C-alpha cells in the first residue's frame, strides 16, 4: 500500500480472526483416540447420548466409537471454533473412562480450571494384603460416607478404583481432597479428617 498522503496517517490495523482448528494445522484434521476399559463399556453404551450430544453440538467435534478397537475417536470439524475444544472433549471422555459420572465430567467441558489428578495408594504408603483392604475401606467409609463428605466439603469428585484414586476438581480443592485422602491412607481416623475438613472448608467459604 502506498503511503502517499502524510507521514502521520498510518494504514488501518488489520483485524485477524483467531485461527480455526483447520487453519492451524493447515487443513489437516486432528484426532484424539480414547481407549475404553472393559468395565466402562456397558456404562458407555448407556450414557452414549449424553456424551455425544454436548460434544457434537456444543463443542463441534466429531465423535465416534470404534467398536473393534474399543476406542472413542474424536476429530475436528472445519467449523470447530477453538483448537482447545478437542482437548477438552478428549479430557471429558477420558474422565468418563476413569469412572466419573457424565454430569460430573461435563463440568470439564464447561469450566477451564478443572483438572483430574490420579495417584495410587502405594504412592502414599506401601500396604499389602489386609492393610490395603482396610485402607481402601477407610477411604470410602461406611456406605461411602467419608468419600461423600470429602466430595461435598471440597467440591470435588473422587473415584476410588481398587488401588487407584482419581480426583476431579479445581487445583486448590484437589489439594485439600488429596491431603485428606492421604491422611486417611496413612491411618488417621475419619473423625480427625472431618475436623480438618471442616476447618479448611470454613476458611475457604470465608474467602469467597
Amino acid at each position: 500500500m502506498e503511503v502517499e498522503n502524510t507521514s502521520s496517517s498510518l494504514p488501518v490495523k488489520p483485524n485477524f480472526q483467531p485461527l480455526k482448528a483447520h487453519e492451524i494445522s493447515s487443513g489437516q484434521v486432528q484426532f484424539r483416540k480414547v481407549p475404553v476399559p472393559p468395565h466402562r463399556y456397558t456404562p458407555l453404551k448407556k450414557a452414549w447420548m449424553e456424551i455425544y450430544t454436548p460434544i457434537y453440538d456444543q463443542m463441534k467435534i466429531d465423535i465416534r466409537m470404534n467398536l473393534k478397537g474399543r476406542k472413542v475417536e474424536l476429530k475436528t470439524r472445519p467449523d470447530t471454533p477453538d483448537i482447545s475444544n478437542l482437548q477438552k472433549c478428549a479430557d471429558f471422555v477420558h474422565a468418563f473412562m476413569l469412572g466419573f459420572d457424565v454430569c460430573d465430567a461435563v463440568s470439564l467441558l464447561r469450566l477451564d480450571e478443572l483438572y483430574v489428578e490420579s495417584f495410587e495408594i502405594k504412592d502414599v504408603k506401601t500396604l499389602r494384603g489386609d492393610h490395603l483392604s482396610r485402607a481402601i475401606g477407610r477411604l470410602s467409609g461406611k456406605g461411602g460416607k467419608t468419600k461423600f463428605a470429602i466430595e461435598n466439603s471440597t467440591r470435588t469428585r473422587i473415584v476410588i478404583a481398587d488401588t487407584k484414586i482419581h480426583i476431579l476438581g479445581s487445583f486448590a480443592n484437589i489439594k485439600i481432597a488429596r491431603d485428606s485422602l492421604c491422611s486417611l491412607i496413612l491411618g488417621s481416623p475419619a473423625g480427625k479428617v472431618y475436623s480438618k475438613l471442616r476447618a479448611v472448608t470454613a476458611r475457604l467459604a470465608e474467602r469467597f
Partner: protein
Amino acid sequence: MPTAAVTAGDGPETTAGREALRKLKSTDPPLYLCPSEDLSKAARLASEYLFSSLKPYTPKSPFSHLLVNGFDAEQIWQQIDLQTQPLISSLRRQVKKFEKNPEEIRNLFNLGEKDKKNDGNDVGTISNGDEKMENEEGFDEFEDEEMEGDDDDDEEEEEEEEEEEEGNAHEGKEEDGGGGGVEDNFLKIKELEEYLEEDEAREYGLKKEKKQGKRDQEDDNDKEGDDEDEDDDEDEEEEDDELGVMGVDVGEDDESGEELENARYEDFFGGKGKMGQKRKSKLLHGSDNLDMDGELSEESSDDEKNQSQKKQKLSTHEKELEKLHSTIEQMEKANLEPKTWTMQGEVTAAKRPKNSALEVDLDFEHNVRPAPVITEEVTASLEELIQKRILEGRFDDVQKPPTLPSRAPREVKELDENKSKKGLAEIYEEEYVQKSGLVSTAVSISDQQKKEAGMLFKELCLKLDALSHFHFTPKPVIEDLSIQANVPALAMEEIAPLAVSDAAMLAPEEVFTGKGDIKEDSELTQAERKRRRAKKKRKFKAVAAKRMANKVQHSSLQNRVDGNEES
C-alpha cells in the same frame, strides 16, 4: 604519844610495839606515799601490839594474836575487824548502861583503875577512858589504813577522811549523855541542856510523841550549826516554833527531814564560813519555801520572820485561801512555761525525751478491724448457719458473669455424608450464578430445616391459641395453590374458640353423600360381594382401554416423525 596503856602486855613486845607506834607517828605523812619496808614492818608491829593489848576486852575473838607474817593487808584488816566489831558494840552498850546508872561507873572505875588523876570526876575518867578507847580505835583504824596505804595510796586517803568523819560522828553521838570533851567547836553541852529544857517546856502537848524523836535529831543538828549569834538562836527557836505550829502536818516534817538528809558537810562544819550557817537555816525552812537554794541572801531571815508572824494570826479560812493562791500561782507559772510535749500538737520523736512515749498512754486510730474473739457462741452460730445453708442448698458460689457474644455465631456448615444430588457442573454453575448475582437463591440445608421448623411451630401456636382464644390470631396464610372445595367463601370472626365453635361445621350432606360403599366388607352378603367385584373389574377395564388408546396415539405420532427423518 599514847598514854600509859591499860593492858599489861609482855615486856619486850610492848616496848617494841610502842617503839613502832612512835616511829609511825613521827614520820611525815608524805613519806607514806612511797612504799618502804621499814614503815611496813613498823606498822605491822604496832598493829600486833595494839591487837594484843585489846585482846582481853574481846572474849569472843578467835585469834590469840594478830597473824601478820605472810598475810595480805586485806587479811590483816579482816582480823582486826573481827576483833573490833564486837568490841565497839559492847562498848556502846556499856556507855548506854552508864548513861542510865551513873553510880555503876564509879564502882567500876574505882575497882578497875587506880592510876587515875581525877577521882572525883568520874565522868571525866570515863570520858578519858572512853577517849582512850576511842583514840585507840581511831588509831587502829588509822594504822590499818596506813598499812593499806602501801598498796593503794589515793583510795586510803579518802577512806581515812571518811573514817575520821565517822569516828567524829560516832563521838558526837556517843557523847549525848556524856560530857563534851570533843574539841570540835560545835557542841556545847551546857547550851544543849538549856535548850532541851526550854523546848520541852514550850512544845509539850502540842506535838505527838513520834515527832519528838525527830525533833531531837533536828536539835542535835541545830546545835551543830549553832554560832554565838543570838539572831541565829532566835531563828532556830522561831524555826522550832514554826515547826511546832505546823507540827500537825506530817508532811512538813517529812520534808524537813528530807531536806536535812540532803545536807552537805559544808552546811554543818562551816566549809565556807558564814555561808554555811545561812544554808543551814535555809534547809530548816525547806517546808515553807521550796526554792531557797538560789537565795542565800539576808532576806531569807527577814522573810522567815514575817511569815512566821503572819501565820500565827491566820484563821483556817485564810489558810485555805493561802493555799488556793499558792496553787493558782503555780498554775499560772505552769501556763507561762512551754507546755509539756504531750500537750503540744504534733510532736516528732526528736522533740520529746527518749522513751517518753512508753510512759504516756497514747490513743490512736487503728485502721484495722480487731480480730474477732472466737468464743463458743461464735462457733456455734457459724455452724448453725452452715447447716442451714446446706439444708437449703443455697451456697453463695461465685458465678461466672455471662460473656457477651462479640459477634453473631457463625453458621457451622455440617458435613453432608450423602451423595450429592447435583453434579459438579451444577454446583459450579450455581456458585457462579450467585457470584455474578443473576439469581439469588439461598438454597442451603440449614435454610430448609429452618423453614420446616418454622412451619411446625406456627401450626402448634395456632392450635394453642385456638384452645385459649385470649388473643385472636387469624389463620396463617399459607401460600400454596390448592383448591379447597368444601370451604365457605367468607370466614367470619367468632367469639367462641375455634375448637368449640361450629362455624367450620360441615353440613351432613357434605360429610357424607349417598355415594360410596356404605357397608363394610364383613357385612356383605355373597351376592353383594360379587356385585362389588364385577364393578371393580368394569372400572379397571375402562381405564386400561383408555391407556391403550393413548399409547397407540403416541406411537403413531412417533412413527410419523421417524419416517420423516429417514426420508
